[in-house]
């Protein structure tokens, strides 16, 4: 573990240094909305933010992702592979959002099929996370095995303290990176203890949601429970909860053709909340109403994920609560689940 620091003013020097070797993605404010984008100008970076509107999964799993391109040649078709993925740093990501990277690693390499695109990107990405000094009231990361300064899924963790950023390397990859950066100085040892306390204070201030403990087994018996009718009746069936969820990763594959005979195969975000998602070629649709779709979202994250990968498919960022057009709150579902299961136990 290596601990370094840099004054806030010099942060753009650090970015510039990183840019020499890496493509750097970081939070950028556009039209009042914070997004993760490639930093072209070091001044663009916006570190005074609670969390980005669209999670940083968009770096690893873009909204439009070209799988390959093609061009008609004579009677055949020539496949054109994507250019090699450049070495990338994701800078300033919140520890909750970075949890997604290990989750994606599991998902995109599950079973026989490995997704070369995502796995290759993962290999080439270094994550510089940024501790969360001001968790929102909608955050519940500590209830899903995370925390505002969670180190599990970052290579480097930055904590803001007074006028400085403190950088702590977590992985070897992170340490190697820090070592190279000249604009960093050694950390002020006196502050480190204070930082640790600050981190603990912030973490313990986040309320713990009781129902989440062991939700996976609790859900097992609730597939046909009437609670889903209640929970789904207000849902309008849009995709905002899933598109803005750091862990959702469903996609649709389609071809885009140009008139000149060239084209590309892309994947775009898709969501289980749309009726078309499950429409089969035969015309049959196993999820025709809102109810099974709302239930699917919860089961996928809190039952299937734990079963398949031993991970909860939720990082507690609260985006779905903030952005739901009908103000449906996932925490209420946890409470319902808890109430029902404690009743049946009792």
């Amino acid at each position: 573990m290596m601990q370094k620091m840099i004054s806030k003013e010099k942060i753009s020097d650090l970015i510039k240094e990183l840019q020499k070797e890496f493509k750097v993605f970081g939070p950028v404010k556009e039209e009042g909305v914070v997004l993760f984008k490639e930093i072209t100008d070091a001044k663009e970076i916006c570190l005074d933010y609670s969390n980005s509107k669209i999670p940083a999964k968009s770096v690893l799993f873009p909204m439009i992702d070209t799988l390959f391109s093609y061009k008609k040649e004579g009677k055949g078709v020539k496949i054109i592979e994507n250019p090699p993925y450049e070495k990338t740093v994701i800078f300033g990501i919140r520890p909750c959002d970075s949890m997604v990277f290990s989750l994606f690693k599991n998902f995109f390499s599950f079973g026989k099929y490995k997704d070369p695109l995502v796995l290759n990107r993962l290999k080439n990405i270094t994550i510089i996370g940024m501790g969360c000094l001001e968790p929102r009231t909608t955050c519940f990361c500590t209830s899903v095995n995370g925390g505002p300064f969670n180190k599990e899924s970052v290579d480097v963790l930055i904590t803001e303290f007074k006028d400085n950023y403190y950088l702590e390397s977590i992985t070897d990859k992170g340490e190697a990176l820090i070592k190279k950066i000249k604009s960093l100085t050694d950390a002020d040892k006196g502050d480190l203890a204070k930082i640790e306390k600050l981190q603990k204070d912030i973490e313990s201030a986040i309320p713990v949601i009781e129902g989440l403990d062991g939700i996976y087994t609790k859900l097992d018996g609730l597939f046909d429970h009437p609670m889903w009718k209640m929970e789904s009746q207000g849902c309008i069936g849009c995709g905002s909860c899933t598109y803005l969820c750091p862990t959702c990763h469903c996609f649709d594959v389609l071809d885009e053709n140009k008139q000149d005979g060239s084209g590309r195969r892309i994947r775009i975000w898709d969501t289980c909340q749309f009726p078309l998602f499950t429409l089969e070629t035969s015309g049959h649709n196993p999820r025709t109403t809102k109810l099974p779709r709302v239930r699917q979202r919860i089961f996928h994250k809190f039952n299937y994920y734990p079963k398949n990968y031993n991970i909860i498919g939720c990082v507690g960022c609260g985006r779905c609560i903030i952005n739901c057009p009908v103000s449906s709150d996932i925490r209420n579902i946890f409470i319902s689940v808890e109430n029902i299961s404690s009743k049946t136990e009792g």
Partner: protein
Amino acid sequence: MTDKSKEKSTEEWKPKIIAFLCNWCSYAGADLAGVSRIQYPPNIRVVRVPCTGRINPFFIIKSLAYGWDGILVSGCHPGDCHYISGNYIARRRFAILRDLMTFLGIEPERLNFTWVSAAEGERFAKIVRKTVENVKSVGPNKIFNKKW
């Protein structure tokens, strides 16, 4: 520079315009222009439809999305529709579509709607000239080009 190459270099860009003509009036008007040997610019490509009422507004947007530089829609004059009221219904549809597209920043010069009867060969040629002029004034259509 020889005269010929000079001529070629000053030769303007030739817009490509899709023309939806109703079978009964405007297509016949175009036929009459042909029979009368009236010359007009070779920029339009005709799609014959039974009636302007058949023109789904999607066709117009789709044409722009597919890179046609301009649109010409022509039907029977009010009151002359072979299908009684098809052109009136089309007129409402196009009025809204054109207002909306113009509001969103698509140059109205690309969207040309008119009436030409079967007896108006001369008018058809003039309308085509005018349409070509309109489209030329706003340049090639790159509105819906994708980045890749």
